[in-house]
């Protein structure tokens, strides 16, 4: 399969013009398709259904039945049956068809061995060259998204992630977004342990938080949305872990994060950081925005 990577590079992170769904013949097939249809209808995107595996009569009829149940007409979607390794084939197809959003069903938590070795959905999330939506509790009658939380880590990618979140919120009719500012305090504890007075320590903490918040304020200004209100929330904790915990505690419907900055290997899972904290235990549906910069 040959793909023209130049078409992918610098392609904006949104709108999601093309959506792909990884079809697995599991009990959650209909609910994943139903969620995909809803998103496709709201965003006006094209839909590609991909199954990696042999095309059999039985599978064909199962898929047709599921599509009919959720209301996807044959003319609404392109169906691809591809042999090969699930991860590499899906990744290749997404590049070939210039997919903007890949939708996958995912368990909240994998068993330890599977997590370290890399499960299908997690591996794709780490490697995809497009945005990935992981659905933890897909439903045939999807409920309205109300709470969107966006991780505001200090990265050039965050501007794209925030603007994609605003685009999605506008389409989904969500009024408020919480932009989470994660402050890692490990270094503060270390540097202030022996040489800072109480006012110095609190001043240092305050300045650190203010610096981060002013950066995020700059990003919010650039979003220019009139219908979506963005609020900054500062929380303490390790990057990734704190955002995931906050999303769980607040019972968020969607957590939006950046795609990884580098190839994530087994060492990144052993010494967990950033996205790996979230992939280890998905707090809710997670959208990983690939900004293609």
């Amino acid at each position, binding site marked *: 399969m040959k793909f023209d990577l130049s078409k992918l590079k610098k392609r904006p992170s949104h709108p999601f013009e093309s959506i792909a769904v990884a079809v697995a013949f599991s009990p959650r097939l209909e609910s994943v398709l139903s969620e995909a249809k809803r998103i496709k209808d709201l965003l006006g995107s094209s839909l590609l259904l991909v199954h990696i595996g042999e095309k059999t009569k039985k599978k064909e009829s199962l898929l047709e039945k599921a599509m009919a149940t959720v209301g996807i007409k044959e003319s609404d979607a392109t169906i691809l049956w591809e042999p090969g390794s699930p991860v590499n084939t899906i990744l290749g197809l997404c590049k070939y068809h210039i997919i903007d959003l890949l939708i996958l069903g995912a368990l909240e938590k994998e068993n330890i061995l599977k997590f370290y070795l890399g499960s299908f959905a997690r591996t794709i999330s780490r490697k995809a060259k497009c945005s990935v939506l992981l659905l933890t509790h897909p439903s045939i009658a999807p409920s309205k998204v109300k709470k969107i939380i966006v991780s505001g880590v200090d990265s050039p990618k965050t501007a794209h992630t925030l603007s994609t979140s605003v685009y999605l919120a506008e389409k989904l009719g969500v009024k408020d977004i919480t932009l989470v500012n994660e402050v890692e*305090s*490990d*270094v503060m*504890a270390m540097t202030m*342990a*022996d040489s800072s007075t109480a006012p110095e320590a609190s001043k240092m903490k305050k300045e650190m938080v203010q610096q981060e918040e002013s950066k995020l304020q700059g990003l919010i200004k650039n979003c220019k949305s009139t219908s979506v209100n963005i609020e900054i929330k500062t929380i303490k904790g390790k990057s990734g872990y704190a955002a995931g915990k906050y999303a769980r505690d607040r019972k968020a419907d969607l957590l939006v994060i950046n795609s990884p900055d*580098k190839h994530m290997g087994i060492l990144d899972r052993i*010494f967990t*950081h950033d996205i790996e904290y979230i992939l280890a235990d998905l707090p809710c549906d997670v959208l990983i925005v690939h900004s293609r910069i």
Partner: protein
Amino acid sequence: MSLKFSHNDLFTLLLAIGVMLILARLVSELGKKFKLPIVMGELIVGILLGPTILGWFCPEVFAALFPKAGPAKIALDGITSMAVIMLLFVAGMEVQLQIVLKQGKAAIYTSLTSMIIPFTLGFCTVWFVPQWFHYEEKYRFVYALFFGTAMAISAIPVIAKILMDLNIYKTKVGMTVIAAAIFDDLTGWLLFSFILSLMGKEGEITSVGYSVGMILGFGLFMLLIGRRIIDRALPWVQSKLSWPGGVLSLSLGLCFLCAAFTESIGLHAILGAFIMGIAFGDSAHLHEKAREIIHQFVTNVFAPLFFVSLGLKVNFIQNFDPWLVTIVLFLAVICKLVGASLGAYLGGMSKRNSIAVGFGLNARGAMEIILGTLALDAGLIDEKMFVALVVMALVTSLMSGPLMKRFIE
């Protein structure tokens, strides 16, 4: 001599501890006004109270406050040994391996070259110019290993403070320096534990294999399994046990158990404390307040006792060898500057920023002094080398910030 801990011994011990803590705090606070590191004030108090000044001018007072033998001396030695174990536990808590993994090419190159080049240059200097150093011939290899490690080690807290003062902690240069310092500390302390475990076993080839095997086995077990168990248990500990007492006693209890274990298998106790510190400090569940309390408790109570006690052990004037101090300081600065700057440059940084990275990593701080003390206690180095290392640690810490500021773009 009776080893019973008498009323008099208790009085002497309490008096000594009280004087050490209060004077250390006063002098350190005074030093802070002149932007001097806290550890410098603590060392000065040690020098004032020790054989260098008090022992010279008022030997009776010195002997009464810090007896050379007896139960009070044993108790004070026990407390300072505990202090060094706790300091290494806190040093381990500062090792955030994720920071190294998160950074890109520049951090990986800098981490490797800032460790390998100073270590190799330090090792080769001892090996090829032995006349500059004083050691027993049978310890030549171990001494060379030690000197290489002493050249390679960094001090994360000093470096982090400098980066924060310059407001560049979160920049690429800042994160590269921190990532490399973490890597240097981790490999440096593992290497030093190996060196200590070799002491007294010179010539026994099996002991080298045993030491390496035990260090790797213990390290891997703690970092892969122990760390996970602690991470799982922490939320329960922090929510079900008294706060912050529960997490404080558990953390230090585990630190001492781990230190006891490594000591019992022939490795030094510091290794157990250091690895436990990494396992404990790595947990995302550890509350910020708990981290702060552990740091405050160790750095403000036990660290002063330890650093003041160094001045009690050694006469800094008698053992000040200008030639040795010059060699050690020159080598330390050149080795680290060349090693770290080269890595940063190869990793894609500009010349000026690469040099700034080199000067940032040059700060040795308290870690070098701890390393020197342990080597002195183990009989690997003499007092002159110890004094040279202390001077080098202080000078490199003082020069790091201004020189970084001068070069950073």
